[in-house]
């Protein structure tokens, strides 16, 4: 267990608490009860904007369940207060290898990243690069000591000390983006950051940042830097576990799209993991861009085009709504009533009583799905109003 990266938000701290009671009620749950951190973007937040929130919703919808969150910060006592207290049954986004749960197949694999400014042209891609001794390097830390980052271990073994620590105990002042901002602002030369965190915030940085993966395993210290990420389910919930596991397989395409939206740098899956169904998008040179809330996938772009030759007439530009038809950004949001399935059905068949026509003649299923993706991106406020553009260098 000592190989688990501590900066996967403190989950390592929870391991001693994982003796979960196995005597639970056997009733099939109607709600997917998720234990999550209320303030931990890009993973989760109280508004459900994190990618783990999104994937949870996707799975719940697939299983015909409702998502219910029990929010508790990822700190000492997380397990005790959440899954152990039976407040929730499911933990999204834990590294494969943690025990105390039933774990699903991995649904993504990422790795730690070297993050630096493109204009610095550092091009660091080895822990043995001699320049590391002279650079100011930032790492995430957990708690109040600075000794438990895997990067700290690898670098310490090479005589590189004096790292700059960025706490993962988030407060109003201490934000998750601080470590990436420090790179962007030239306060530190290099950061070594867990992939999803690095990709998400680097994309929003005001200057172009370069991401490069660490090796899957630092041989000299046996520290792993790439991890399969799985869903943990309370041990007693065998049926639920099996259903989630199947759902992850069914929804792997949509999960990959969500991960792409969040600019999660995916690690090449080891052969074994690939068999288990991990999305294995190959990571190439990952250069992050200035904040770009107009960057979309090809499908979302096409959806934007359909929307703005058809739907905007009644649903308003940007799906903002008009006197004639509702604001779709609200309708498809987590507060709204329009599920993915209902959206597709409504566009295809129309709602004559509301004046909504059937679009069967003009749009096929694939095009309607593209339309949904566009509106969802707007609804999620990931996409700014205006002309979006397709991701180019992103993948």
């Amino acid at each position: 267990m000592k190989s688990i990266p501590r900066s996967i938000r403190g989950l390592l701290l929870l391991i001693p608490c994982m003796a979960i009671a196995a005597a639970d009620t056997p009733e099939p749950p109607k709600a997917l009860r998720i234990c999550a951190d209320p303030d931990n973007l890009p993973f989760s937040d109280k508004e459900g904007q994190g990618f783990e929130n999104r994937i949870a919703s996707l799975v719940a919808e697939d299983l015909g369940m409702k998502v219910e969150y029990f929010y508790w910060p990822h700190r000492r006592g997380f397990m005790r207060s959440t899954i152990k207290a039976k407040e929730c049954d499911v933990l999204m986004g834990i590294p494969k290898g943690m025990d105390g749960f039933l774990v699903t197949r991995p649904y993504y694999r990422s790795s730690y990243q070297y993050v630096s400014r493109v204009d610095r042209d550092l091009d660091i891609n080895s822990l043995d690069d001699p320049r590391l001794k002279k650079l100011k390097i930032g790492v995430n830390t957990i708690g109040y000591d600075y000794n438990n980052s895997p990067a700290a271990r690898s670098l310490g073994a090479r005589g590189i000390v004096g790292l700059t620590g960025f706490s993962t105990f988030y407060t109003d002042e201490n934000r998750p983006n601080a470590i990436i901002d420090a790179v962007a602002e030239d306060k530190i030369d290099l950061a070594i950051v867990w992939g999803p965190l690095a990709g998400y915030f680097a994309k929003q940085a005001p200057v172009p940042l370069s991401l490069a993966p660490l090796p899957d395993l630092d041989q000299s210290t046996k520290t792993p830097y790439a991890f399969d990420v799985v869903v943990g389910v309370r041990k007693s919930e065998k049926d639920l576990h099996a259903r989630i596991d199947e759902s992850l397989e069914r929804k792997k395409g949509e999960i990959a799209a969500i991960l792409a939206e969040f600019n999660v740098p995916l690690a090449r899956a080891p052969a074994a993991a690939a068999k288990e169904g991990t999305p294995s998008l190959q990571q190439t040179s990952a250069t992050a861009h200035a904040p770009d809330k107009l960057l979309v996938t090809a499908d979302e772009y096409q959806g934007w085009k359909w929307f703005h030759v058809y739907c905007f007439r009644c649903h308003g530009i940007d799906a903002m709504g008009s006197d004639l038809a509702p604001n779709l950004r609200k309708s498809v949001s987590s507060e709204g009533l329009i599920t993915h399935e209902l959206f597709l059905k409504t566009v295809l068949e129309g709602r004559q009583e509301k004046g909504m026509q059937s679009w069967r003649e003009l749009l096929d299923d694939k095009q309607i799905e593209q339309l949904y993706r566009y509106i969802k991106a707007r609804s999620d406020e990931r996409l700014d109003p205006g002309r979006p553009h397709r991701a180019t260098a992103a993948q």
Partner: protein
Amino acid sequence: MMIVRALRGFGAGSCAVVLGALLTSSVAFAEQKGEWTMTGRTPDLQRFSPLDQIKPNNVAGLVPTWTFSTGALRGHEGNPLVINNVMYLHSAFPNTVFALDLTKPGSPMLWKHVPAQPSETIPVACCDVVNRGLAYHPSGKLFIELLAGDLLALDAKTGKQLWRTKNADYKEGSTMTNAPIVIKDTVIAGISGGEFGVRGRVTAFDVNTGQEKWRAYSTGPDADVKIGSDFIANYASHKGPDLGVTTWQGDQWKKGGGTTWGWYSYDPELNLFYYGTGNPGTWNPDQRPGDNKWSMTIFARNPDTGQARWAYQMTPHDEWDYDGVNEMILATLNVNGKPTKALVHFDRNGFGYTLDRTTGKVLVAQHYGPGVNWASKVDLATGVPVRNPKYGTTAKENTTGICPAAIGYKDQQPAAFSPKTGLFYVPTNNICMDYEGVEVKYAVGQPYVGAIVRMFPGPGGNRGRFIAWDATKGKVVWEIKESLAAYGGALTTAGGLVFYGTMEGWLKAVDAQTGKELWRFKTPSGIIGNPMTYLGPDGKQYVAVLSGIGGWAGIGVAAGISNEDPTAGLGALGAFGDADKFSTQGGVLTVFGINQKVASR
């Protein structure tokens, strides 16, 4: 009937012969010079009034004398008519028609007529639910084209319906917005719907019965387009049978657009009426290889038969939505040293054209706006614009920086011509765009736009200009920069003034010679209508204008569209997204007269 007035503007020297020829068939109009009996005052669409009480040295005394609300809050294009001391006024959808008694204080309502129209029509209108006004027949009939697709005839005395004839069908995507024209005992109506894959046409009806006399299509075989043996084809690209079919791929011509929603003019001597056709359908050029005739075309037709005398296609194979529907102003001009029966047209595509209206030959074609980049010039030998392929468009990518934008350097806002100065007064836009085609399917009654457009201010950053234009040379004589598009029409008078409105709501009067601003008044809403002038029963000159922002340029305010997305409103929001900061909805007519005390100060 209104023929003589039409010719008044031709200038003293050159028109004596013409006048003589026509006097016999006309009633005397001397006492009626204070009236405004058709949309452009005279069938030449000059928007010139011989009234001269209001002039540069007293225009400062112009004050509002009464106002009238139409009760509609969408874009108000067009202008009222004044006939026999009654003002006839139209509104935006639902196209209410009012008769106002000018002989009584405050001009009370004589009648109003609210035509029944289904509200489902609203989303079928491309660019706000505007109406550009009424036509009048001396037998006491008024005509209005209803958005839902019916041509409505009213008794001008009572406001009672005389007849109502279906000419378009909103369920098929065709609507009606333009002012019809009355020629002899015929009323000619057009259709809108170029964004719905309709097939453009003009249709003539008997003023007394509403019975169709003929219909001439913009696309299709010569028999449908009414091209016969006496058709003049001046250019190689205009020669050959059935170009309305052969310049399209497959049967695309059947949904090929070429709508007819602009202003119609008429030359009684040549017995030809003139109008332009709109964009080919769809906006995505990849789906319709070929010249796409006769979209984007100026037509001269015989109003009795509908037969085309000549046609000139300005923008073959349009890739930018440069509808050719803007007004064709008829005037006699000295072109290349010869008095010429000219037709002057300021096209959306950025060229100001001067044609010989007898033959249809292009005499002058010059950019009237800055930075036109889709075509460098029009080759006068071939009649074809010389394009810059860099600014061609496709569905494969977004083409950026095209000038002018789809809305054109000028759109529907009609220009005016003063025979006194020999200049054209042209309200213009200064808007450019990015344009990306979208591969769209056709279904009856469904939007068939096929492009996403973002508009933005053109060179200089000002979104409009009001210019004086010498059509004999193709040159700007003076220019007033406007912060917003000058999206309302122009009026010029024998008093030496030019009036125009702005989208902020200012009505301005400028000196016709110099362009110097002499007066302005802020009306309740943005102006996209056309100022007009008339003589009241008290013998005094009045100026009237509708204010009520909307139309394509003002759709954001009119329809309450958010300005977050610049591609909205068919792209207009990018250029006018801040419209809600300078104007709110309205539908008010303001009438101005001279206050002698102010004038003499």
